[in-house]
């Protein structure tokens, strides 16, 4: 429609160009002792995401809400049965996602310039970050499921590369492997979902606008209600399965806590703000499809809630500051899925948006603490840092009050909206609501625990780290401050209690409104919004005060490795054990059977056959006459015999 739409490809192309360029530079310097100048590489590395952000802003501001741009560049896989093209769809949902992906991406790349200072693999890191941004942008900007899948696996790949970035330590490699494999297990589900959709809606059924049109077409409603039900169930189930892996929900969440092995900017960008939210994005994008399957919607809600609660409890047990934040991410993702499962897709996306700000702020702040303490990540060895790291404290505090939901902060608006929507979502609504509220209390509890252990009290670490403690350089401080400001202010784009401030909600209405209306045809009337706000605030305050009281006086024992022990450890590793019993162990057994029993049997049989042949050969060899005279004699004798026989025949 708009000719300028044909330039949409610039947005993903810029980070891709950056990745390739930085990759080549990294290879050129790979065998030398030192890499190129960090300053120039840093500028280059941040320039590409920043430009992508600028282009996104340009597109976002040029076109009013409600307009969508579509640009199909070239066909990809086009045969009779499947028709997939390289196409981009810039509508309100992708606009929102792109804005914060490119914006936060650029900020975090800037942060990593400071964080990765001195690392020999600096340029390689920047190349991977740009590659990641390319994949993530492709994921949200694509106009069809297969191109989204390209971005989906691409972010999985970049996650693997970045988690295992310091590859000389095998533990990092193991964590990276785990992330890739668990994600791959989910990717299979994604693919199966795609196949189900192709079978349901035809060769172009995997392209979002066409799918939406197909689902809403009254001609297809009889198909959808009748024989199509099974396919819709399969499609939604498998696609949701894919989402559980990418967004670390039960049961495929085991990779995310391990992913903290990567550098902190990676955790901030990939495992907090962007990659893990892809699942929620997919749910919102395909909302028209998901609402047609109430069973799967219920499953999403229950799993989301279960994940949120489980991870909140696990967060209380962690001693590593990054692990606390990791489980916090899993828990918040659970909230988003809960919202989506209750039909509140826009609330889920809103929480994605605000969560990106405050979680990134929290992670970057944690990175700043780690950087200041020369690599110390153990909360037991921190304490009293509010005096030595005031700015970092402000950052973390902003993220803290946002995540627990103090009124006015971004987290407050989004979490409250979710809780409100959950309550009115149906007969089970209040049950889900109170469980979610309890989780909110737990959230406040463990987050306050983290803040108390890190900043309050007196310092419990070694003298060496205490002397080392210093604030981060400017390249790290600026992004953190921007994100902290975002955690406080970003929520006002949809401040539910204040009339008129709902631009976010209005923007998403064309995308998900239809689906949501289908799911909740009647407006349920619940208590007033102010009551919810009060309840949420109360939960936050209760949790925070409990956390303060419980942990302010407690001096954690410094013995042993950090982390949960005993029963807490079993809770934390519950799903790892589940995976081991149901997936890893059977595979190993099957592999053992295949290798030792079957393959070796084959090889043994072959060797046996070989021996048999050789033995019989040596026997048969004895029959061979080597003596010249004996050959002569035998020949004559046989000739005589034959002549006699022939003569007898003749006569």
């Amino acid at each position: 429609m708009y000719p300028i739409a044909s330039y949409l490809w610039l947005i993903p192309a810029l980070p891709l160009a950056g990745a390739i360029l930085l990759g080549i530079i990294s290879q050129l310097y790979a065998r030398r002792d030192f890499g190129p100048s960090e300053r120039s590489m840093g500028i280059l590395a941040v320039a590409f995401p920043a430009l992508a952000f600028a282009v996104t802003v340009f597109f976002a501001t040029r076109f009013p809400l409600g307009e969508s741009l579509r640009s199909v560049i070239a066909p990809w896989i086009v045969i009779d049965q499947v028709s997939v093209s390289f196409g981009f769809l810039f509508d309100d949902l992708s606009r929102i996602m792109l804005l914060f992906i490119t914006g936060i991406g650029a900020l975090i790349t800037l942060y990593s310039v400071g964080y990765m200072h001195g690392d020999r693999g600096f340029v390689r890191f920047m190349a991977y970050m740009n590659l990641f941004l390319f994949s993530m942008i492709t994921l949200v900007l694509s106009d069809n499921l297969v191109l989204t899948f390209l971005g989906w696996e691409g972010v999985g790949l970049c996650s693997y590369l970045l988690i295992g970035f310091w590859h000389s330590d095998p533990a990092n490699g193991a964590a990276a492997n785990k992330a890739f494999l668990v994600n791959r297990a989910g990717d299979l589900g994604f693919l199966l979902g795609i196949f189900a959709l192709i079978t349901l809606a035809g060769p172009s059924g995997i392209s979002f606008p066409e799918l939406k049109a197909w689902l809403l077409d009254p001609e297809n409603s009889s198909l959808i209600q009748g024989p199509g039900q099974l396919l819709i169930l399969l499609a939604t189930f498998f696609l949701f399965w894919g989402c559980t892996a990418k967004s670390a929900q039960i049961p495929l969440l085991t990779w995310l806590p391990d992913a903290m092995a990567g550098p902190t900017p990676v955790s901030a960008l990939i495992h907090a703000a962007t990659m893990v939210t892809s699942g929620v994005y997919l749910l919102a994008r395909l909302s028209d499809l998901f609402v047609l399957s109430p069973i799967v919607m219920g499953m999403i809600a229950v799993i989301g809630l279960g994940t949120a609660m489980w991870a909140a409890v696990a967060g209380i047990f962690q001693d590593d500051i990054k692990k606390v934040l990791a489980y916090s991410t899993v828990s918040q993702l659970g909230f988003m899925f809960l919202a989506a499962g209750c039909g509140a897709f826009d609330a889920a996306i809103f929480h994605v948006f605000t969560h990106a700000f405050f979680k990134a702020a929290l992670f970057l702040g944690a990175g700043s603490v780690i950087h200041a303490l020369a690599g110390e990540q153990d909360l037991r060895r921190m304490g009293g840092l509010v005096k030595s790291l005031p700015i970092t404290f402000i950052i973390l505090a902003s993220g803290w009050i946002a995540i627990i939901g103090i009124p006015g902060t971004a987290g407050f608006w989004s979490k409250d909206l979710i809780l409100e929507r959950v309550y009115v979502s149906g007969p089970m609504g209040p049950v889900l609501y109170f469980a979610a509220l309890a989780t909110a209390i737990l959230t406040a509890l463990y987050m306050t625990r983290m803040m108390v252990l890190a900043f309050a009290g007196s310092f419990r670490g070694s003298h060496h780290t205490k002397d080392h403690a210093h604030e981060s350089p400017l390249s790290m401080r600026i992004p953190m401050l921007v994100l902290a400001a975002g955690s406080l202010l970003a929520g006002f784009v949809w401040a539910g209690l204040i009339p008129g401030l709902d631009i976010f909600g209005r923007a998403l209405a064309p995308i998900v409104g239809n689906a949501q209306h289908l799911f909740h045809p009647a407006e349920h009337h619940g208590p007033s919004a102010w009551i919810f706000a009060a309840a949420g605030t109360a939960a936050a305050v209760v949790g925070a005060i409990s956390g303060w009281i419980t942990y302010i006086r407690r001096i954690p024992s410094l013995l042993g490795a950090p982390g949960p022990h005993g029963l807490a450890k079993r809770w934390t590793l519950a799903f790892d054990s589940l995976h081991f019993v149901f997936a890893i162990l059977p595979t190993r057994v099957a592999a053992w059977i295949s290798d030792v029993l079957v393959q070796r049997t084959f090889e043994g049989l072959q060797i046996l056959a070989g021996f048999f042949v050789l033995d019989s050969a040596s026997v048969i060899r004895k029959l061979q006459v080597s003596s010249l005279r004996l050959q002569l004699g035998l020949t004559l004798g046989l000739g005589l015999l034959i002549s006699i026989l022939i003569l007898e025949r003749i006569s």
Partner: protein
Amino acid sequence: MTPDLMAVQGVAVVLFCLGIAVAMTRRNIFFILMGVELAINAANLSFIGFSRTLPAAMSLTGQVVPLFAIAVAAAEACVGLAMVILIYRARESLDSESFANLKE
């Protein structure tokens, strides 16, 4: 004087057996070749014997075939002896047992 058919054939058979016996029992390659020659000539004798004692129409065959056989035997002797020379160069031995290349 009319030779007795059986006597001629008998001599031919005896010579033939002697020739084969020589070819099969001697190890020296020359003696093997001699034995083969003897056997061939015994066959020639047999033909000539039949040519004398069978009716006139066949008698010509009995004389022509030995002529051919003598020529062939001569050629075969040439070729055989040439091969013996070459083999001797390679093996330095005239013992036919040592000519076997096939493994036991």
